[in-house]
């Protein structure tokens, strides 16, 4: 479930530019453009806050997550709100809300990063394989290309969230299932991206020129084509992180994934908050807003990054 972007910003082939030296010039220019872009800065700040909170969670609170220590204070009609000992109050099980929130951030970050990493490594490898062989051509090359892309088509035959749900449901009730499932749902996106990038660059003039000069194909691929594909891949990974965070919560909401109450997770917190909304709306509002916050940060930054890396930028 990647958040689709306007067509002008869709990068089907991932070609950044025919930079002879793809390393220095493009990135520095991109960095400069990013610095001037307000939404990039906002996004970066939001991401930084999220990551910081997630990493330093144990330092931010002295309580343990899911401890339910103060369950005695919770009654069917009231859940204690913010107080000096409990910054955000308690949740309906009697755990400290602030602790739940910061450890939830940790969970979201871990899940998001791991699943995106899985999707990236598997997807990019498949895509590079298909693209690399595809651009080389010949019977074997085309066969590998087609085979890989058929596999990708199968994965794309159902919507990505449902794919994740199906895989997670079939794999069992644990966090690994969730991460693998969401990662698997991202594989086709990265595969298509890399393949497209490699294929279109295979036709690029500078590749033909290098080939004519006698440089070996593998060197061309490693030294030029791959570096050019890094940019769009990073952009896609950032945007996918946003979706992954949302999907993790969605899967928890559906009852998949980690069921251990000692593990705090925003999606599950939303499930629990539903029937106490009257008494304590913050139980639902906080985790929901947090999910949106994290996703927004990554999305803003990812889109700004995409604009910054595009040499055909209108600015």
């Amino acid at each position, binding site marked *: 479930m990647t958040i689709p972007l*306007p067509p002008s910003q869709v990068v089907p082939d991932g070609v950044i530019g025919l930079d002879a030296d793809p390393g220095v010039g493009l990135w520095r220019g991109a960095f400069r453009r990013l610095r001037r872009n307000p939404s990039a800065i906002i996004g970066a700040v939001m991401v930084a806050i999220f990551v910081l909170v997630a990493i330093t969670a144990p330092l931010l609170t002295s309580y343990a997550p899911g401890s339910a220590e103060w369950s005695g204070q919770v009654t069917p009609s009231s859940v204690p709100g913010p107080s000096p000992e409990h910054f955000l109050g308690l949740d309906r099980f009697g755990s400290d809300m602030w602790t739940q929130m910061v450890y939830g951030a940790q969970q979201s970050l871990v899940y998001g990063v791991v699943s995106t990493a899985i999707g990236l490594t598997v997807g990019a490898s498949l895509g590079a394989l298909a693209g690399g062989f595809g651009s080389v051509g010949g019977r074997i090359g085309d066969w590998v290309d087609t085979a890989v892309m058929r596999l990708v088509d199968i994965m794309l035959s159902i919507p990505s*969230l449902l794919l994740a749900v199906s895989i997670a449901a*079939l794999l069992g009730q644990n966090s690994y299932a969730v991460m693998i499932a969401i990662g698997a749902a991202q594989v086709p996106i990265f595969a298509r991206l890399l393949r497209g990038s490699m294929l279109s660059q295979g036709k690029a003039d500078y590749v033909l020129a290098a080939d004519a000069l006698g440089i070996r194909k593998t060197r061309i691929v490693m030294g030029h084509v791959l570096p050019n594909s890094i940019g769009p891949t990073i952009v896609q990974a950032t945007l996918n992180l946003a979706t992954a965070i949302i999907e993790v*919560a969605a899967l928890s909401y559906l009852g998949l994934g980690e069921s251990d109450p000692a593990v705090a997770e925003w999606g599950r917190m939303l499930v629990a908050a539903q029937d106490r909304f009257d008494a304590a709306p913050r139980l*639902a509002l906080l985790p929901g807003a947090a999910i949106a916050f994290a996703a927004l940060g990554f999305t803003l930054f990812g889109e700004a990054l995409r604009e910054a890396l595009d040499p055909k930028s209108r600015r």
Partner: protein
Amino acid sequence: MLRFVLRRLALMVPVLIGLSILLFAWVRALPGDPSRALLGERATPEGIERVNAAYGFDKPLIEQYLTYVGALLRGDFGESIQTGRPVLESFTERFPATLELGATALLFAVVLGVPLGYVAARSQGRLLDTSVVSGSLLGVVTPVFFLAILLKLVFADKLHWLPTALRQDPRMDATHITNFYVLDGILTREWDASWDALTHLVLPALALGTIPLAIIVRITRASVSEVLHEDYVRTAEAKGLARGTVSRRHVLRNALLPVVTTIGLQAGLLFSGAVLTETVFAFNGIGQYLFEAIGSRDYPVLQGFIIFIAIVYSLINLLVDVSYGLIDPRVRAA
């Protein structure tokens, strides 16, 4: 055109075959006896025997696979372990609900989103544009189930403006023919039943349609902005045509092409979102059914669901591509 459709249908086949192989392989890969794995905790000797007979787990793999595919082609998607009813039957019974919900959500998204995106594009850079852009960004990142929960808790549970759950008040005892509740009410002239079904649709459709709304707004805005700078719009202006003519015939007819494609792509989002939204509102569609199946580890339902969705989703994508050819004359030539 016909060739195009046939070719696409032909391409669907290997994909579906591949999918069926994967699903088939998965069941066999589960730890332990396949039949035991399917039944989970409810495994009893009779149950195992029944499943073995039904699935033929004692026969050679190839034969099992062919039986499996044969059954699929006959429309036999297996039976729910929970209820014993054929899976396909349960799907077709509940699919209209999801369809009704999805269509309403999509309608909402398009009717509101296209004009909003157009207006934002024309007022580029000014306050209206900025607020529309920010609003749509927020709409894209807000999880659909969070929105659903909020809407339900605020407008239904707290304010009692709209019903909190289900598709229709069960006390209504309405007659159902097509299982499209709103339509049914109209067909049977039970107007109050129709209206009741409609009010039950409002909140879920609002929640489900928000993300597609945001996306449609963004794409419309981007597309219109681009088209406004095209040479043929300048030609139209140079002809002295009325502003409305320029907007409709020259700007919109071109700008809406990518939007139409997007609408088709929303189908995927709508399916995913429907699963979550139906769960929140106990809206009895296939999404709700899936949720129940997950909870009870009803694997035949899960498998059947995957195949069912794959077929439906591919058909929808096909429809979208065909429609694109109908709208854009340049594609028709290809």
